[in-house]
């Protein structure tokens, strides 16, 4: 493999990838998405272990990681934007206390 990767894309259906090092806003990250080399400019700083959008995601649609919906967007998310609790909710709700 050429060069060092800064992100992990787990399943080719995913619309998010995970940063494996802390990445600053404005960084261009290169990754292979469904066989194509793409560059994504990060719109937010992404802490290590956190996710960013691989493409534009409308409000109210599924966020896909591990090839499965891990929750629903509560706002429009742009390509390269941080995807986390501020713009995603669980389909199951938070299981506090149950």
């Amino acid at each position: 493999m050429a060069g060092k990767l800064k992100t992990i894309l787990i399943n080719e259906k995913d619309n998010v990838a995970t940063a494996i090092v802390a990445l600053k806003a404005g960084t261009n990250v290169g990754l292979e998405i469904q066989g194509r080399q793409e560059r994504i400019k990060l719109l937010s700083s992404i802490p290590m272990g956190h996710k960013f959008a691989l493409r534009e995601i409308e409000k109210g649609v599924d966020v896909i990681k591990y090839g499965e919906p891990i929750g629903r967007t509560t706002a429009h998310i742009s390509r390269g934007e941080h995807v986390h609790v501020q713009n995603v909710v669980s389909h199951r709700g938070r299981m506090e206390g149950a």
Partner: protein
Amino acid sequence: MNFQGYRRPSGKTGLRNHVLVIPSVVCSQGAAEAITRNLKGAVYLANVFGCAQVGADREQTKRTLVGFGTNPNVFAVLVVGNGCENLPAKEISEAIIPSGKRVEFIEIQDVGGTKKTIAKGRRIVREMLADAAALEREPIPLRELIMATECGGSDYTSGLASNPALGAASDLVVGEGGTVILSETTELIGAEHLLAKRARTPEIGRKVLDLIAWWEKEAIATGQDIRGANPAPGNIAGGITTIEEKSLGCIYKGGTTTLEEVIRYAFPPTGKGLVLMDTPGHDIDQLTGMMAGGSQIAVFTTGRGTPTGSPIAPVIKITGNAETYRKMKDNIDLNVSEILQGKETVKDAGKRIFEEVIAVASGRLTKAEKLGQRDFCIFKIGLNF
């Protein structure tokens, strides 16, 4: 694609050629151990049950012991009982006969004490070992593989590196027509609806949801809420957004294919493809259940490190944590930490795991086998009386 295995009289395929000594009861375990001592190729089970058990609990112990006897990694079986236990050696031995392999039983009370039992047992096991040595490996299609998956001692690297890589390998095994077992039902919580949706039929999906409901009810009966507040604040700080994401990080090790079947503890899968076995999250309970269900090999991901092995099957251990690999090289077989260093993709690591599975299936020894690590623990579901 083929591997090199041992063809059994039942038509099934073994990856190993063990002579197995099964103590039918806890008090014959010492004799069973002594019978196998220093006999290369002979193994015993550290069974601590087999007496004063009733109903479904007794059945589960019997099914597990018989499952180890019929497992195709085992060439021949000697069952050692005491004589008065309520799970008699004869009963276990008779249940193994249909597998077509040689099976004998002896009882300490009948033979006349431990020393005579050990001497007689060793004579029988030596004969079995001599016969086993005559058998040779032959090419076997990969569709005959039943691969158990497991994770334990997890950390942040499990959901990002080792489990996704194992998931990619699981998909390759299913793609070759083989079988993959996913277990530890309690770890599905939060993502059970997603696995249920991947089921072959709505009935199979329903079974997944019913299992989770049962475990939650059992936990609540003991005053515990296993769903709890998930993901925890520490998980969120680490980048985990929802409970689905957290649980998927664990169950992804089974891959992404259709869920073909849900089976009870220590029962064999009836078809091919991805299968869910209902087991606890307890590492050795679940490993034991999958081996009793006829799995011949396990792949075990770990973040913190674990020494786990099985008496009758190779257990390949994988970590995505570079520090754990460095510290526990004598326990861990494969290092996939380069995923987190950006030097290897999940897909490429999955291919490496798949290649290791084929090499180990064909005879390469795992670290746990070299160390003689032989963990055995039956999932107990009732009181001893």
